[in-house]
Structure formats: C-alpha cells, structure tokens
C-alpha cells in the first residue's frame, strides 16, 4: 500500500480526524445537523430507519465510507484496504497489552513554556492548555508498566493528536524515565513512536531531548536489556533521528510515513516530485533500515514472541 502524506506540524486535520472527533460529540438528532457534508447521507439513513445511528467516516486511502463501529472492531484498520488509522495512546495500549495490565507513570508532567513562546498563529501556553483539554493528555506520550502475553515490560506510547506528537521537554523526560524504569527493573522496553518531530516552541530544549533519550538508551544497551521500537504513522524528524531508530528490533505498521526530513522538504531540495511510497514503512524495509512490518492485528502476538526470545 503506497501513500504520500503531507506532514503538518500542528494536530492532524485530515478529514478522518475531524469527522471522528465531531462524531464522538454527536449524541442527539439535533447534533446530526451539524455533521459535515460527506457524512450526512449515511448518518441520516441510520436515523430514518430507526436503528441506532451508524457513525460514519471516510478512509483516506481507498475513499470508502465506513461505519465507525466496523472500523473500531477491526482495531481501527480499514476493512477494505487495510489502511491503518492513527490511534490515541490509550487505544494503542489497549490493543497491545494484556487486559488490565497497564499501570501508568508520571501522567502529571506538563510543559512550562520555557521560552514564553508566541507566534503569529498561537500562544504556546494557551495551545498547551487547549490540547490538554481537547486530547485528554498532559503531553504527547503515555508511559507505564504492562504485560504482553504474560511478560513484563515498560511501555512508552506517543500520541500524534497532541500538538502533532512533537517532542519537547515532557516527551523527552518521560521517554527517559521509561528507559530508566526498564534499566532499574531489568525488563524490556517498548516505545511506540508517532511524531511530527521536535517541538519548535521549546527551542533547543527540544533538540536536546534527542541526546537525552539516546544517552539513556545507550545505558540500557550496555546493561544488556532489550529495546523494541515500534514506528507508527507518522514518525519523523528528531524522533526518528534519535530513540525511534535505536531499537534492538525495529517494527513498523504498514503504510506509515517514516522519515527524517519529510516528503515536502525533500521535494524542495531536490526540485522534483517524489515517487509514491517514498519514506513509507515499506520503503524503509526495502532499504534495510527496519526489521519488519507488522499489521496491527499481529502486533501483540509478534511482541509476545520477541519477549519470549529475549527472556
């Protein structure tokens, strides 16, 4: 499956994300009238037939209209073309770990806007407050302890919905704490990446998180503790060029955008349109840069096998 994705530094505004969020808010027939144009026909169909409203969304890959329910039952993978929708951190955790095995750490860390950053389009401090409210997370990563097929591990799962999964002080600190937990307990670490790169609003603090997380992982490596890196759509920039590409085993979901510079930047420098599928997970596998591509529904089982290999 080949796909070119335009990377946006802010929270995603593809039609899928907008409509899913709007749909989540829909509770009443009155609310139905506020749906966006493409959704109306299906939602109304459900309503007029007197059955519970089937909330609908559009697959960005095959353009089919899907019922949200069938998509959710399929782990948010399009049942027609297998396009892997982006997940919230808690959704990803639920899909990966044994039931009720996840204990979250350090949920309360928040950024303090160290540069008092203000741009033409936003005030960073306000943006943080808005995102916390909207996304329900304090920053773009959730960390904790869990079990997969009975084996203990430390988990860090990023969430692209929070300011584009960008890495600032909090993401860097939490990833580092996750590594240090794995180190002190001597259990494996899994990091699921999803990021637009380093968070510009925190300046050099953000860039240095690349070094901080890499330094922690280097210690983990010396201690002989395994680190599995899962690359999800999208994984880009400073995150790719630091902890994401340091896994002992690197897995990726199919079709994800995984790159350093991003297609738009490359096109600018090369003065040429890129072939379809550039900087996709498949592209990386072909060029020897990752160990495997794993469809979402096989992830838990694959991780279970890895954990058994390394135990």
């Amino acid at each position, binding site marked *: 499956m080949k796909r070119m994705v335009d990377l946006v*530094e802010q929270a995603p505004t593809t039609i899928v994300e907008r409509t899913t969020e709007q749909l989540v808010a829909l509770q009443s027939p009155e609310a139905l009238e506020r749906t966006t144009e493409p959704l109306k026909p299906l939602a109304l169909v459900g309503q007029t037939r007197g059955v519970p409203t089937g909330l609908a969304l559009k697959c960005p890959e095959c353009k089919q209209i899907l019922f949200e329910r069938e998509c959710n039952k399929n782990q948010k993978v399009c049942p027609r073309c297998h396009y892997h929708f982006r997940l919230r951190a808690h959704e990803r955790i639920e899909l990966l770990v044994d039931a009720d095995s996840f204990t979250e750490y350090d949920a*309360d*860390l*928040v*950024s*303090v806007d*160290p*540069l008092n*950053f*203000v*741009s*033409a*389009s*936003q005030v960073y401090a306000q943006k943080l407050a808005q995102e916390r409210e909207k996304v329900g997370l304090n920053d773009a990563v959730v960390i904790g302890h869990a079990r997969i097929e009975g084996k203990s591990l430390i988990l860090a799962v990023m969430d692209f919905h929070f300011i584009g999964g960008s890495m600032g*002080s*909090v993401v*860097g*600190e939490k990833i*580092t704490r996750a590594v240090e937990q794995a180190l002190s307990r001597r259990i494996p670490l899994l990091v699921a990446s999803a990021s637009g790169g*380093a*968070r*510009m*609003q*925190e*300046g*050099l*603090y*953000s*860039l*240095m*998180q*690349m*070094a*901080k997380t*890499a*330094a922690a992982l*280097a*210690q983990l*490596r010396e201690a002989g503790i395994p680190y599995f890196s899962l690359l999800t759509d999208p994984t880009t920039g*400073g995150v*790719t*060029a*630091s*902890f*994401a*590409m*340091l896994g002992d085993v690197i897995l990726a979901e199919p079709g994800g955008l995984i*790159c*350093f*510079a991003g297609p738009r*930047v*490359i096109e600018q*420098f*090369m003065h040429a349109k*890129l072939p379809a599928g*550039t*900087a996709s997970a498949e592209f990386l596998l072909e*060029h*020897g*840069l990752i160990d495997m591509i794993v469809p979402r529904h096989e992830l838990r089982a694959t991780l279970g096998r890895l954990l058994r290999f390394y135990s």
Partner: protein
Amino acid sequence: MEPIKCDLDFEQPLEELAERIRVLCEEGGALENPGRIQEATEELHTRLQEIYANLTTWQTVQVARHKDRPRADDYLRLICDDFMELHGDRVFGDDAALIGGLAIFDQQTVLFLAHQKGRGTKDQQFRNFGMPHPEGYRKAYRLMEMAGRFKFPVICLVDTPGAFPGLEDEERGQSEAIAANLALMARLPVPIIAVVIGEGGSGGALAISVADRLLMLEHSIYTVAAPEAAASILWRDSAFAPDAARAMRISARELLSTGIIDGIVPEPVGGAHRAPTLMADHLQVALKEHLHVLKQLSPPELLERRYQKFRAIGRFACLG
C-alpha cells in the same frame, strides 16, 4: 592596511566612516595621515563594539551565516599542528561536508571532527554547503569509536545548516546515522568538546555535539529548526524568520542563560570574520582550558557527568 567592509545591513551606519578611512589610506596611507586614520579607526572600532555588544537575534544569524566567517579549516590550520585528514566511512563513500582527522593539540593527539561549508561557489558545491549525508555521520562514528579505543580526546567544530534532506539520504538512513552518533557519543570514554563556530543546524549539528562541554562562539546560533522553516509553519510565511529566530532564542547569548550550553567564546570586535587569527587564538585558549579540566576526570566520572548534563536538560512541572 586592509580595507574595512561594512556589508551587513545593520552595519550600514558605519559605512560612511569606513569609506572615509579607505579614502585616507588611498590618499597617502599611514605616512601622510597617521593621526586622522588612527582617530577614524578608533571611532569605527568603538561604534562596531557598541553594535556587536547588542546584536538582535536576527543580526546574530546574519553574522553566523556571513560568507566570510571563518570555516573549520581556517581554525584547524591555526589551533593545532600536523592535522592529518582521514577519509571514508568504510561502507559507502567520503562526505566532504563533514571532515575528520588527527592532530597534535596541546601536546597530545586529538581527533578533530568538523562541518566544512566551503568557500566560493565551486567549493561550496563540493562541500554540499556543510550539509552532511549519512556517510559523513558514519565517518564521524568510526573515527570517534577509534578515538575511544586509543584514548584520544575529541574536539568537534560545528557549522552546518543541517543534515542534507535528500531522497538518497533517506534511502541510506540519515536518521539512523544521526541516532547512532548520539548514542555512541553519550558513552564515549574520552573527553569531548563541541564548539559551534557558525550555525548549529538542528539534528545535523547535534550528531557531533553530544559533548562534555558545549561551547558557542559569541555570534553563533544553535537551532532546533531553521528560522525559515519554523516561520513557514508557525507564522505561515518564511519571511517571518527573524521573528521565529527571536522566539526560539537561537543566539549563543540567549542559550547561555538556559544552561544548555557551557560557555561562550568571545569574538573580536565586529565578528570573527574581521580578525580570524585573533578568533583562532581565543578558541585555542578556551579549548585548552576545558580539555585540561576534563582530563582530570576518570572515564567513569566523565561518563556519569556527561549523562547528568543531558539528563538535566528540559523544563517541566507536575500538575496537582
């Protein structure tokens, strides 16, 4: 006497004075008008000093990117002896944008790594404007690993707009190359000093600046993203690069107050490009001082302190 140029826009107020000096020199030079030339030169010096003591962030960017700003090879020629360049990553190629080699510095063998931007169109193209490919970072990796085995300290001169964002670079694993360097440097059991001599361009700079001491020349910059890129995303127009530069606080002076960098190497009045030899002196002195201190530490102590240095970078709070 060398003609004084005032070619940056914020130096324009001094152009008249500089012109007057040039004319006096042409008319008869030091023999005819010694007093007046001396007086004018001193005045120019004072006014330059005032301007350069109060550069805005964007003015600093302009100085950091100045076409005559000394390059890494200028410093290597002046601060160390017997520099022998080593080539290749042993896998794919030799990157002219990132050079490395051995030299005698302060009576010991040191590995030098440096971004090389090039001078003049042809050389700049050959050097890819100091924007390394994965093979440049892999050359740095193999040389640093070797330096670790032979206990050679490592000194890195950082000056790059960033790692090159080409399609072939993605194919050859630009991100993996940078990540590998970060991890290696974090655990390298020899003193590492990195100095930003011009532009510290994001990850492409960081890949050779995970160090015990991170220094910056007085009028250099270190960015998480180029101001033009940040402006096009957060101001929706790259013309706002000066605003982005200021907001991200990318100048050496601003960064010193964050605690992320360990020191600033003062530049001659009017910037390094006005007195490269004097600048090299300042740089050599600073490097020797820091190297001397670092050499007192045992490797485990060195590694622990380096880890804690990076561990402490970041600003956050706990809610509730």
